[in-house]
């Protein structure tokens, strides 16, 4: 993964000094609450219900074992010995003290980490597919470009105070796993007809209050121009995006208001001035950064391993885990492994300090000392030998990290919700826990098969509920918490937004509602169909009819 040179290190060190002074001025009364807000937000610090929340950047989800160990130490020293992985692949601490945050940042800087631009109206953490670099269907490893974009966007002076937050995702696979269409800018890397690396540029996607899938603003862009083209897009947005209403301030509203064609014309006009300018990426810079992402020193292994096959045959629990948590790898004899942060009955994405240290050890022992976080809020060891899987499974299981539920109903994407977040209308974690307990039977879960259930505690949609096969949104009705259910959302190349099935439900009703949705699916599915396929084939009415049936009888 990318390692800092002196220039990178100096920037994070100077940031610590700058932020320390901002906190000092705030505590000394030299900065008002309102003036401090944009400053602290651009350093990932929210003021929440109980305490501040600090969001630490994990650029495009890559972590070293050393970094994770440090995160475990920080969570223990400054928080309650746990952290929470978010849907932007970042790590959140829920209980730090404001006064401690400069020291936390100083500690992070010692392991080449920071919290720069993890919140606020600026360019946020660049995200990508968690199987980047190892997926068999990958055409381009986009990490070098993600790093180049990270550096370019860090303290970009022109885009320091945008109308609203700005999220960029990159992907380099045929099957999109980075939800590029749900981002302000999505950069899809591919190889063009001349065998050159090119970018398909998506713009104006986003979830939140007004969910919109992005439009293609440019089918073909040479990679050298990725930064200048982004500058053109963001300049048009910075100048013309609405600033009078924060709910109408995302770029998606501007692209809809102008229409994609007019927006494209403005961007292209701007770009004629920027094209081939100084921020054009050079071959040398790409090569320098790409070297950090060279393939691991893999051993030449056979595609099969007898001990692995024997373990699968003799141990059903191991076999179940392999089926859900082990993924294909482009190198023969290697696999990627997802460590589930979704044990039933616990907050999705949460991880204790002890688990962080344990995962760091596992990464050192089995996966070249590196790991990734995913937007589904799990951790991935990307380069594990087939022959090591059984040993890894035993160790992960001892830490509660081997729930064989990846991609299943209980692998719930969930925001922190009303338990922590001051924006939330309703709690989300207890709903996730209740659903996990309702579906605690693993055989049943495996029978239901691939399904994505996403929960957000408010319309800001941090839990990506719009693109869940089942989406749950917490809403406030006259001061009490209710839950709106949608079905038919999907991430990926054929992304779609779910539609709401009807009136909202109370928290107690929710496990039963999900149960009923699943019953319809089980009844109606053809042998090969996943839940989402059945919804797309038969539409929402049969689901609605069954879920609301009791009410009709009562009436």
């Amino acid at each position, binding site marked *: 993964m990318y390692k800092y*040179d002196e*220039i990178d290190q*100096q*920037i994070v060190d*100077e*940031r610590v000094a*700058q932020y320390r002074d*901002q906190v000092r001025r705030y505590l000394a009364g*030299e900065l008002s609450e309102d*003036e401090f807000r*944009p*400053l602290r937000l651009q350093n990932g610090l929210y003021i929440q219900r109980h305490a501040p929340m600090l969001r630490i950047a994990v650029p495009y989800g890559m972590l070293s074992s050393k970094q994770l160990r440090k995160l475990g130490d920080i969570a223990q020293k400054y928080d309650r010995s746990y952290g929470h992985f978010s849907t932007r692949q970042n790590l959140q601490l829920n209980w730090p003290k404001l006064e401690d945050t400069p020291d936390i940042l100083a500690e992070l800087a010692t392991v080449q980490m920071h919290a720069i631009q993890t919140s606020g*109206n600026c360019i946020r953490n660049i995200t990508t597919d968690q199987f980047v670099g190892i997926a068999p269907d990958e055409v381009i490893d986009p990490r070098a470009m993600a790093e180049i974009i990270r*550096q*370019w*966007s*860090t*303290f*970009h*002076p*022109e*885009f*320091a*105070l*945008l*109308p609203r937050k700005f999220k960029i995702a990159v992907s380099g696979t045929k099957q999109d796993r980075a939800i590029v269409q749900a981002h302000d800018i999505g950069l899809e890397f591919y190889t063009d007809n001349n065998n050159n690396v090119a970018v398909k540029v998506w713009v104006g996607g986003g979830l939140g209050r007004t969910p919109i899938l992005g439009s293609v603003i440019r089918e073909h862009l040479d990679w050298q121009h990725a*930064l200048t083209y982004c500058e053109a897009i963001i*300049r048009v947005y*910075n*100048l*013309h*995006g*609405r*600033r*009078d209403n924060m709910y109408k301030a995302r770029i998606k509203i*501007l692209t809809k*208001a*102008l229409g994609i064609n007019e927006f494209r014309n403005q961007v292209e006009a701007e770009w004629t*001035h920027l094209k081939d*300018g*100084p*921020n054009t990426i*050079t071959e*040398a*810079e790409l*090569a*320098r950064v790409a*070297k950090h992402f060279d393939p691991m020193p893999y051993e030449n292994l056979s595609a099969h391993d007898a001990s692995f096959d024997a373990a699968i045959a003799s141990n059903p629990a191991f076999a179940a885990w392999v089926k859900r948590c082990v993924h294909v790898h482009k190198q023969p004899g290697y696999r990627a492994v997802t460590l589930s942060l979704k044990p039933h009955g616990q907050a999705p994405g949460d991880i204790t300090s002890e688990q962080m240290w344990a995962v760091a050890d596992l990464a050192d022992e089995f996966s070249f000392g590196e790991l990734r976080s995913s937007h589904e809020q799990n951790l991935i060891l990307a380069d594990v030998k087939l022959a090591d899987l059984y040993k890894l499974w035993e160790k992960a299981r001892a830490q509660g990290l081997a729930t064989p539920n990846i991609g299943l109903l209980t692998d719930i994407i969930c925001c922190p919700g009303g338990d922590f977040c001051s924006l939330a209308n309703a709690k989300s974690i207890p709903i996730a826990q209740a659903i996990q307990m309702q579906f605690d039977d693993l055989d049943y879960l495996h029978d239901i098969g691939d399904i994505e259930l996403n929960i957000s505690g408010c319309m800001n949609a941090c839990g990506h509920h719009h693109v869940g096969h089942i989406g749950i949104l917490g809403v406030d009705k006259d001061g009490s918490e209710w839950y709106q259910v949608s079905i038919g959302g999907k991430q990926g190349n054929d992304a779609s937004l779910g539609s709401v099935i009807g009136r909202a439900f109370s928290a107690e009703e929710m496990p039963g509602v999900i149960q009923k949705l699943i019953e319809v699916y089980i009844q109606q599915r053809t042998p090969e169909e996943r839940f989402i396929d059945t919804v797309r084939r038969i539409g929402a009415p049969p689901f609605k009819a069954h879920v609301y049936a009791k009410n009709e009888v009562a009436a």
Partner: protein
Amino acid sequence: MSNLVKIENGVAALANDDWTLVKLPEAQTEERIQAGKVVLFKLTGESTITEEQIANTVIPATGKIIVPLSVFVERNAELESRIANGEVGVWLATHELLEYLIQQQADLNVLPIIAVFVERFADGRIFSIGTLLRTRYGFKNELRAFGDVLRDQLFFLKRSGFTSFMVRQDRSAQEAIASLNDFSKPYQGAVDEPQPVFKRYNRGV
């Protein structure tokens, strides 16, 4: 005492302000309703400044003045000789369009100063406006930020081509100077240093 910070020959220091800022009289209509609604403003062609305001603006008879963009355009004939003498600068708000200025005054370097008014700290349009004035329209003279200008914008303003900063009256301009050097080797090319870090330094291979 002036709260003006000025960068001259690469050195930032407190400076005396020898310009008089000319303001528009208060509008009859509630202007805030329009403020910031740039999309609507552009799509509907509505102006936030009335003819009446422009006509009623009091322009001092002598001295160096910075006039509102609308006054500069609409009452340009009155100012002609003073413009030729280098006594007139222009200021604009962040929702105003640079095209409007360029249509009136193709060669901006006739103006010794352009000032940009930022109403709220969080309004980052000022950075794009500065960048465009420098890179697109070739403006070389003093570029000033005023309004809700606080020390934590200064680094970004400097990088966006601003050379003077009227720090908000209730804050120390002297202390704000330090923040101009918050970062020594920024990553990306911008107005003050067009080359990105990978072209300025040998970062190895």
